[in-house]
Each structure stands twice: as C-alpha cells, then as structure tokens.
C-alpha cells in the first residue's frame, strides 16, 4: 500500500504561477507526483462528484485556505508524503480574499474565484460576480395582498454563522488496479456513483469497476455531497494505475475541516403578516447563503402549514471559505424559517407557541380539513392528528403547562433566568428515494440480504433484517446483511432520512418473492436427467397450501407437516454429499434468490405527496445573566415516525440529533482570520462539539400514527431532530431573558450584548 497526500493551500485566494517539485520527487520513499499541470489529469481535467458537479482534480487556483490543490504526492508512508509536500516550492499570485457574503455582493469586492464556473443563468465568459446561484423562488398566493389583510406585520433578520461538518473518520480513498480491472474502497455515501465516475475518468467499462464500501465513520452528508467528494478516490486510482500498487489517499484533520461547512450559513430576512388569533397570513423572505443552500427557506412553511401567501428569494454568494453542503441536513434553511417565523409571531401576540402551531398546521396553504380529506383519499386514518399527538406527549413530558411563562419573567433561586422553548416541523422523509436489494437463502437455511450500501451507522442492517425475517418467515438472527462489498445491487444511499421508506419496501418485496420461490421449490418434483424423480418436500400440495414461520416451512391446514427451510433448500443430490463432492455440477435445485427494485415516488422524488407526520421539541434552559452562559437543563423530543421498526436505532437518532443541535446553536462556529481567510479553529479542541456533559437529561418519545408513506406507515427520522430541535434553544433563550438573539451560535457574548451588558464591536 502506498499513501497519497495533497498540498493544502496556505492562502484563501491565490493562483500557482510555477511549482518546483524536484526536491520532493527525489526524497526516498516518494513514488509518484501528480501536479496541476499533469498532461493527463492536470490542466483543469475534472472529475465528477456524486451529483452533477465536476471539479478539477488538481486545481491551479484556490478559493479557500486548506484546499487540496497544486500537487499530490504518493509515497511509501503518509509521513513521507507529508514531508515531501513541505519540499515543494511554489511561486504564488496572492489575491485578496473576501469573507463576508454581504461584502462579496458589492460590485467593487474582489471576485472570490475568478476561474470558477459561471452561474448557469449567466452567459459564459469572465466571472464578474460573486453570485453563484439562487432563485426567485417559491411563491404561493399573493404576499402583498396578504400583508394588506394582516393585522400585524413584522420584519426581522437572522444570521447563521458558518459551522462545520467534519466526519469522525478522516476522508480517504483506496484504489487498486488488477490488470484492466479497478477495485475501490470508498469512504462515501454514494458508492454506486463511482462506477460512473471511474468510467468517465479512465474510459473503463463499468463492469470492470468494483466498489466496496467499508464501514464509514460518522458520515452525515457533507463531503459525500460536495463538489470535491470524488477527488480522493480519483487521485488514489490515478496513483494506483501509475505505480501498480494499491494507494490510499488520506488527509489531515485540519485540512479536511476546512473543506466543507453546512449549507445553511448566511443572512436571512423575513417579513411576516399575521392576525390577533395567531393565524399567519403572509411570509416573505430574501436570504443570502454562503456558497449554496439546497432548499428554499420557506419550503417547510409551504409543506407544513396553512399559510396562504409565501414568497422567497434566495441568493447564493461565493466567498473565500470552503464549500458548503448538506450535513444533517440540507433542510436547515427551511427549519430555521419555520422555527423563527412561528416563534416571533407567538411572542408578538403573547400567545402560547404550541397553540400558534396548531392554528397554522396544514399543507400547501390549506388547513386541517384539507389534510383530513387527503389522508382519507390516501388510505390513512383521517382522525389521526400528528401534531396534536406529539404536542400532547411532549408538553406533558416537559411540564409545559406548569412551567411556561412570560418572557424574562422567571428568575430562579440560583440567580439564573429560566426559559422554556418550543419548535415544531413536519417529519421527513417518506416520499422519495430508490433502491434495489435481493434475498438469498443459503444451504443451511440462513438468508442474506444482497445489496451494496454505505454503512454509516443508521442501523439500517437491523431494520432490514427485521423486515426480511418477518416476510421470509425465518428468525431475525438467521438474516445477515453484508453491504460493504460490491453486490451489484444498490440500495438507497443514507441520505434524506428516507432509507427505511425506500429500502424497507425493496427488501420486503425481495423477501416476499424469495418466500414464494421457496414454497414453489417445496412442492416441486425434480427430474434428475432421466435417472428418476427427486420428489418434492411436500408432495401433492401447492405453494398456496404452505407458509413459513421461524425457519419452518409448514402445511397451513396441518402444521405438524413441516420441514425446516434448510431441509427444503438443501440439494440432497448435489450439496449434501461430503465435502469433496459438494460441487455445483451435481446440483439439482437452483439457488433460492429473488430481488426487487423500489422507487418511492416519481424519479425518486415525489414532492406532491404531503408530509403528514409531525415532530415537536421542547427545551428548558437556565441563562446566567452575569456570564451569558446557557445551561441546557432538559430536552424533550417527540417524533411521529409513523411506525417504529427499530426502537434503539430511532432513539439513537433522537439523542444524536439533540447533541448535534445543541452544539450548532450554542457553540459551533468556524472562525476565520478576517484579513487572510485562514481558518483559526480547524480542530476539535477549538471547534466545540457537544460532549455528554453539555446537555441535561434528554427525554425522547416516538409516536406511531401510521401516517408515513413508508412500509407499515413509517416515516424517516435520521436528519429530523438534529435539524429542527436546535431552534428550541433560540426560543428558550428568548423566554428566559425576554430578548431575541437571532444569530447562531448563541454564545455568551451575544447574550450579554442582548442584555445590554456588553458593547457591540
């Protein structure tokens, strides 16, 4: 194995004029060098990422500090590669970085990346703007008319400072060529995309690319969905081809942290019209996002509420920091808008925010009557009201009715201010995704789920094994899923919180088809090439006379007439002979295998389906008005997931989302040197993730209304808590001190400034 490391840019904006790698190349242990001007893979040659992005493999220019660019070095060890990089001599054209997106909008501001691809809506040519995208968006009704009809109209701003991704396991890519065949080990959520990526990069047939996906350490989107998500794998494959050895690309933690941040960072502006009864009439938003934002901020208000008038424009602005992308998850602009609009309306009216939520529940601007009809038309129970059920449980658990008070009204004996916060949203997702899976019964009666999928710890294996066990009729412990090897069938990737609702259907269909094959085998005579008939296990019966349970095939009308799955599938002619004679050549019975594909919606996405499940979160805090510190005393999460398949896994998502949310809104923020663009806290000492001691007791509740479009009425949960619950902190702090702090993270200095105890800089 050889190791490859990339040169990390020391500048936030610069271009390489010339590069001398001679000293590096002479170092013992250095085996290959890939430069920005490489005739085959340099000079702007791009590689595709999992989505539709293409990016230069070895850029000559950089637009953020820490970007891997200029040169990659492949050596016997990682240490040698890193040391060789220090011997590379570069002549730079240094450029002035621009870090603030509002400054970047000024026409006189430096262009953050002059060589960047033009925004699609502008003609090709020299890049003259830092606007990289956006839309005039999402409209519903007539907001101007709506504001006229509103008793109250407020406007407010929200700022989300840039915060980070960074998976537990550093980014790597491993490749090995065996003749014309290429084998990959990818640390990536979209492994199947690499057959296409390598096909495009090398011209290799996809059937000669094998993609393995070992367990992935802490992957929440981020790098996998980023423009540069394929770079590591591409570089390892290039070096593997040139050296004839397996190559692992690996990055330092500091460099990886700099690459990508969460794509909700930016400036949001809201204008909200509402009436005295809490009914929200119109919402207008114009928001500026750092680099990109995947969803429109008002999308959740559209999907979730009866607000009849919505209009949102978003602008994506380039600046000299890393990429941004979805990181548990891309819905954050939508959840931010949802949380803040409702919190502000409730506060202006002095109303209980849970009541404001109920008043405005709905979808596409229509209310609960519409949703009840919709539920009935789609086979759901129209009497189940997900939000009401979540609120009832959550309010009781936090003691809402006893503890909620006017803002700034409750000072505790310890001198701190008590606050209670609430946030709600819909639960996602049961309305999109596509995947394939197979079920194979081995000769000992155990079963495999045959599919390939990134395993990043969302407990998918357990859930799918449960489903297969139930529908195949075997024991849970006899079902095994080994998704890490290239099985040529690809399950829905872990993203979008829609895995269970897509792959659950796929494995269920496959299990049912496999069971049917098993039963047909059980009633079939086999003709052994004229030597005689190998009789059926259940002679004289039809497949419909049989069923399978706990690993036994049995006659429904006479359950004592039974045989184990193992005995049914065992090929007594071919497979049961002693070891030297267990050859496929003598087999009489074929393998019992079936597969299925499932698409949850049109083209894998079906946005017309209303989201019927809801979630509600409650936060209790104490704010120290002397220090500005916020202590999170208790969090209650209620998630209606429709149907729980794996309780431990779902609870884990609730806990995990809470800690991530607490970190995001209380302390997580990347800090850059404002003059150079150098990332100052690109490490886990100074970029603070939440520890076990940072949040008090977390009380999690799972609600099962069956209102999901997934199997058994299920809906997803993976991204839901981490993306929504964090704003419970925002409203809890307001309830505690009576001041809005609409800039995340809510660090102590901001609390003190809000209280008038510290000056603005």
């Amino acid at each position, binding site marked *: 194995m050889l190791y490859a490391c990339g040169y990390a840019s020391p500048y936030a904006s610069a271009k390489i004029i010339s590069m001398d790698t001679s000293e590096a190349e002479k170092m013992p242990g250095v085996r290959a060098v890939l430069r920005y001007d490489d005739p085959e893979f340099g000079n702007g040659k791009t590689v595709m990422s999992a989505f539709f992005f293409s990016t230069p493999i070895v850029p000559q220019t950089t637009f953020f500090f820490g970007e891997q660019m200029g040169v990659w070095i492949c050596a016997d060890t990682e240490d040698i590669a890193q040391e060789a990089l220090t011997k590379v001599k570069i002549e730079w054209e240094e450029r002035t970085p621009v870090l603030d997106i509002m400054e970047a909008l000024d026409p006189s501001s430096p262009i953050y990346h002059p060589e960047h691809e033009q925004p699609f809506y502008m003609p090709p040519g020299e890049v003259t703007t830092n606007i990289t995208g956006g839309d005039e968006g999402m409209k519903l009704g007539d907001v101007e008319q709506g504001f006229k009809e509103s008793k109250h109209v407020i406007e407010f701003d929200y700022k989300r400072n840039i915060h980070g991704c960074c998976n*537990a396991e550093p980014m790597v890519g491993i490749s090995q060529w065996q003749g014309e065949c290429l084998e990959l080990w990818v640390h990536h959520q979209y492994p199947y995309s690499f057959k296409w990526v390598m096909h495009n990069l090398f011209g290799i047939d996809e059937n000669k690319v094998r993609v393995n996906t070992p*367990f992935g350490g802490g992957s929440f989107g981020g790098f996998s969905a980023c423009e540069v998500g394929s770079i590591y794998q591409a570089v390892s494959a290039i070096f593997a081809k040139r050296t004839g050895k397996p190559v692992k690309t690996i990055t330092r*933690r500091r460099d990886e942290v700099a690459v990508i941040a969460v794509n909700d960072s930016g400036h949001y502006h809201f204008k909200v019209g509402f009436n005295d009864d809490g009914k929200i009439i119109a919402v207008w938003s114009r928001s500026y996002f750092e680099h990109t934002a995947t969803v429109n901020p008002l999308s959740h208000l559209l999907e979730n509420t009866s607000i009849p008038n919505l209009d949102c424009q978003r602008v994506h602005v380039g600046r000299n920091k890393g990429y941004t992308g979805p990181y548990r998850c891309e819905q954050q602009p939508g959840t931010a808008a949802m949380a803040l609009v409702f919190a502000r309306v409730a506060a202006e009216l002095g109303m209980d925010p849970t009541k404001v939520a109920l008043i405005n529940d709905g979808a596409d601007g229509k209310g609960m009557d519409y949703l009840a009809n919709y539920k009935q038309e789609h086979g759901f129970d129209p009497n189940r009201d997900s939000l009401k059920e979540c609120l009832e449980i959550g309010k009781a658990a936090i003691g809402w009715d006893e503890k909620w008070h006017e803002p700034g009204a409750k000072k505790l004996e310890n001198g701190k201010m008590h606050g209670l916060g609430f946030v709600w949203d819909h639960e996602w997702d049961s309305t999109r995704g596509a995947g394939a899976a197979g079920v194979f019964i081995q000769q000992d009666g155990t079963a495999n789920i045959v599919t390939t999928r990134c395993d990043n710890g969302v407990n998918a294996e357990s859930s799918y094994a449960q489903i297969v066990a139930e529908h195949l009729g075997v024991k849970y*412990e006899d079902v095994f899923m080994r998704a890490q090897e290239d099985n040529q069938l690809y399950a829905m990737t872990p993203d979008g919180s829609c895995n269970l609702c897509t792959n659950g259907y796929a494995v269920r269909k496959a299990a049912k088809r496999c069971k049917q094959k098993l039963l047909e085998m059980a009633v079939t005579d086999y003709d052994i090439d004229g030597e005689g008939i190998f009789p059926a296990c259940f002679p004289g019966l039809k497949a419909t006379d049989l069923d399978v349970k706990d690993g036994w095939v049995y006659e429904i009308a006479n359950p004592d007439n039974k045989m184990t799955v193992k005995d049914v599938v065992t090929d007594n002619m071919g497979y049961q002979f002693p070891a030297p004679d267990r050859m496929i050549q003598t087999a009489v019975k074929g393998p019992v295998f079936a597969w299925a594909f499932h698409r949850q919606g049109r083209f894998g996405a079906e946005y017309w389906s209303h989201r019927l499940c809801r979630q509600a979160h409650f936060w209790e805090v104490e704010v120290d008005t002397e220090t500005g510190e916020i202590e999170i005393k208790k969090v209650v999460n209620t998630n209606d997931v429709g149907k729980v398949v794996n309780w431990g896994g779902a609870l*884990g998502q609730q806990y995990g989302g809470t*800690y*991530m949310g607490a970190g995001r809104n209380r302390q997580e923020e990347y800090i850059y040197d404002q003059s150079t663009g150098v990332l100052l806290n690109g490490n886990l*000492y100074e970029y603070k993730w939440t520890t076990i001691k940072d949040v008090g007791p977390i009380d999690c509740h799972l609600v099962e209304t069956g209102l999901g479009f997934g199997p058994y009425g299920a809906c997803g949960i993976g991204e839901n808590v981490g993306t929504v619950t964090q704003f419970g902190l925002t409203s809890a702090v307001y309830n505690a001190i009576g001041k809005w702090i609409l800039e995340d993270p809510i660090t102590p200095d901001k609390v003190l400034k809000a209280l008038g105890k510290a000056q603005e800089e």
Partner: protein
Amino acid sequence: MSEETKKTPRAISRREFLRDAGIVVGGTAVSSALFLSACGKEVEVTKTVTTTAPGSTVITTAPGTTSTVTKTAAGSTVTKYACPVCNKEFDSLEALKAHYDSVHETTASVTGNTIKLTVNRELYEVMVESQTTLYSLLHRLGWMGVKRFCDRGACGSCTAIVNGRPILTCMALACEFDGAIIETAEGIAKDKHPLIEAYVQNDCMQCGYCTPGFVTTAKALLDRNPNPTEEEVVEAIAGNLCRCGTYPQHTIAILEAAKNL
C-alpha cells in the same frame, strides 16, 4: 444461528480489511516488528519468529510474502526478515539491510530505541524512533481499535489502557512505554468483557468509529471502580466525543456492564 453468534463482532474487522490491503502486520504467537529507518524515515520490517516442536513442519506466512515451510530440529527457532517493499525474505537483518541498500535505497540504517510492549497479551519487541506516537505504533502492529479522529488528543477515540490507565495514544510517545502492558478494544472484546454485550444490547453504536475509545475508557473506569454512580460514568466518558451523539445509551450500557462484572 445462536444468539451468541449473532452478537459477536463482525467477521471482517477494519484490521483484517487493512491487512488484506497490503499493510504488513506482525504474525505468529510471538512476533516482533523492527522499524528500519531509511534516510531518517521509518520503514516497517516484519520479523516472524516461530518456535517449533521437534521434527514438526511449520508454515509461516506474513501478508504479501510467500509461504515458508520449515522443518526444524528440537527446540530450534527460525527467524526470517521480510523486506517492507518487495517482501523478499532474508535470514538476517544485515542481509535485509544490504538488499534494501542495493535494490531500493541508497542508504539504510537502523535507528531508534528498542522497547518491549505487551499488547492484548501479545509480546512485542519494537524499535521505534523518538517521534513515533503510541497510536502510530499500535496501528502498525495491527491494533486498529485506536482510531484517528481529532488527531490531537481532544476526542478520546485513540484511547488505550496503558499500565491500567486510559491514555490518549495520539499524544503519547511510544519510546516512553518500554515494558508497558497495553489493552485495546480488541483485547477487551476478545475477553468478552460485559461491556461488549451491554454496548450491543443498548444500541450504543451508530457509525461505531468512536466506540472502541468509549469501551476502552469505560473498561478503565470499571477496572478502578466496579460500581460507579451515573455521575461517575458521565465524568469518565466526558472526554470521549461522539458526533452520532448516542451518549445517554453509553451511560446505560456501562452501568449495566458494571452489574454483570
């Protein structure tokens, strides 16, 4: 398939995966690794030491090398030194160095300190350079339970129990641990410590990357305090980071394991 089988760790560990990918790992019952320093940089050499019974046939292999079949007389020892670049075997370290000089590099020298370690009850004799971290050494010896996460002692994922104390191996220099007895997550799992079953039953792992560090930290706690309070458990694992955030389940699992000691 039995319940026990269902709950054992996965058949293919990261260690085995990386071993198959070509990293040289020490092999037999008593194995050693020497670090051949070429122009100041460490290059790993695998030495296989096999002690045989009289007249027996031994097949020794190291990943990437050819099999060596050896018939020995009573009580004799066969030692081979494998080149880290081409895997060719030599009878002496001097022969290996000469080969390395002539075929792969212009100069080679063996530098560093020789230390002895016991890792999960396996004895090693290792020559390390002064800047070799304990994390790096454990990885080279094939013990992947120590993970690189923060790379600067902030996350606890590189934790190993060293002479009874939990140590952040990425912040520890190997040369300081001559004679140390080290336990990693692999050893804890091999001994079927109650923590393993408790962690599985309580869904403590999501991605699992931080889990070996947590288990090791928890084991160190239970070794010194077999009956901790919940607060003591929280305090003990407060230095372990988990981005998946299943912290509460860790506490439950550790308290449960304590009851089953």
